């Protein structure tokens, strides 16, 4: 059987969502298609944690189905090779991980919800990272809470065959942490649209799910993503969600919701937050806002 050669392209931080679509499109048929795949990274000189999360999800999904996925290491620059190793992605492709993490926040993969393990990941990997400035107790708490909310969401809502994945990067010069959490379940946009909401635009469907009290779950719910969004607002960070063919972005209080010219077969939530030692971040009550 032949190997299908797929080109992996650059994915830069804070670029428009067209870059993500260009990254996703070559992968599109092979999330569920069983032929053997070899990734060609000759066109990839920079990769964000979002790209790393997509690649991790791609290979884990295919592994789950028993499909083979490789990297053509001859096409990989030394920088990208080192970065993949720091994210601990290399071992997914049969290579050795890099001995030092640097500013990478390595892959974390759960097939069942384990809140204590999520907390441990934050304490031992994210907070203990090289060059990571000290976090205030409030920021530690908000970070724990936000990531746990995201993981709970995956296991409550997504029905993801490969569970949940987290991966990230710390940017010391701008004191910013980027963490991506993703699953390959139904997809947030599709799930909302099945309720008859925002049928014409997947981006608007994502936006609906972020409002206080909005949930596709039967009964009480609908605060996890709202809490996350409020944290990002107060922190002046960023939130970026890909789900199905929907895209939502929030930087501080500015929102964008639109269709994505590609499909991500699940939900990828990226939070970027600032680590500053002199700030308190917390969700606000109505009376605080007045």
């Amino acid at each position, binding site marked *: 059987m032949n190997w299908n050669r797929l080109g992996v392209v650059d994915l830069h931080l804070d670029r428009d969502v067209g870059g993500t679509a260009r990254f996703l499109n070559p992968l599109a048929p092979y999330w569920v298609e069983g032929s053997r795949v070899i990734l060609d990274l000759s066109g990839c000189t920079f990769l964000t944690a979002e790209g790393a999360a997509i690649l991790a999800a791609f290979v884990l999904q295919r592994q789950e189905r028993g499909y083979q996925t490789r990297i053509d290491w001859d096409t990989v620059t030394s920088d990208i090779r080192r970065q993949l190793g720091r994210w601990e992605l290399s071992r997914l492709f049969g290579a050795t991980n890099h001995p030092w993490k640097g500013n990478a926040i390595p892959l974390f993969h759960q097939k069942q919800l384990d*809140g204590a393990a999520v907390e441990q990941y934050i304490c031992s990997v994210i907070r203990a990272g090289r060059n990571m400035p000290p976090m205030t107790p409030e920021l530690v708490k908000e970070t724990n809470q936000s990531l*746990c909310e995201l993981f*709970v969401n995956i296991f409550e809502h997504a029905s993801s065959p490969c569970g949940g994945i987290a991966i990230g990067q710390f940017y010391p010069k701008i004191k910013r942490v980027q963490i991506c959490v993703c699953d390959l379940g139904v997809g947030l946009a599709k799930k909302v649209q099945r309720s008859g*909401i925002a049928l014409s635009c997947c981006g608007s469907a994502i936006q609906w799910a972020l409002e206080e*009290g909005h949930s596709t779950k039967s*009964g009480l719910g609908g*605060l996890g993503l709202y809490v996350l969004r409020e944290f990002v607002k107060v922190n002046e960070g960023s939130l970026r969600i890909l789900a199905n063919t929907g895209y939502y972005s929030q930087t501080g209080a500015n929102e964008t919701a639109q269709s994505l010219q590609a499909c991500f077969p699940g939900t990828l939530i990226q939070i970027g937050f600032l680590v500053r030692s002199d700030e308190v971040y*917390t969700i606000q009550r109505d009376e605080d806002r007045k």
Partner: protein
Amino acid sequence: MIMTPIHVVELVGPVCVDPEDGLVLCQQTRTILAQGPGIVLDFSGVRTLTSSFLNAAVACLFDKYSVDFLTQSLRWTGLDSTDEKLVQLVLKNAARFYQATPDQQAAIMAASSRAIEG
């Protein structure tokens, strides 16, 4: 009024994240509420708390008791300011959900059911 304490950390541990653990707390609270005048939910020692856990921890109470009764019968303690605000948010959301008219609740549930079945 003598209120019975529930030490959450002893019941479900210091990481209160999983809705299934929230359900355990809810059932324990409901059992004690059926026998006595009130409860103090003590979160001392809890490190991480999420809305998903709290939703599950209060849903079966709001299902059975009125908002006024629960306001009088439940005390929350051992929370720092971050968790206190999260609790207030969850309680406000629960009150809004359970105070909706039967028609409004039916509409919410119908939309949710379609989403789940789909």
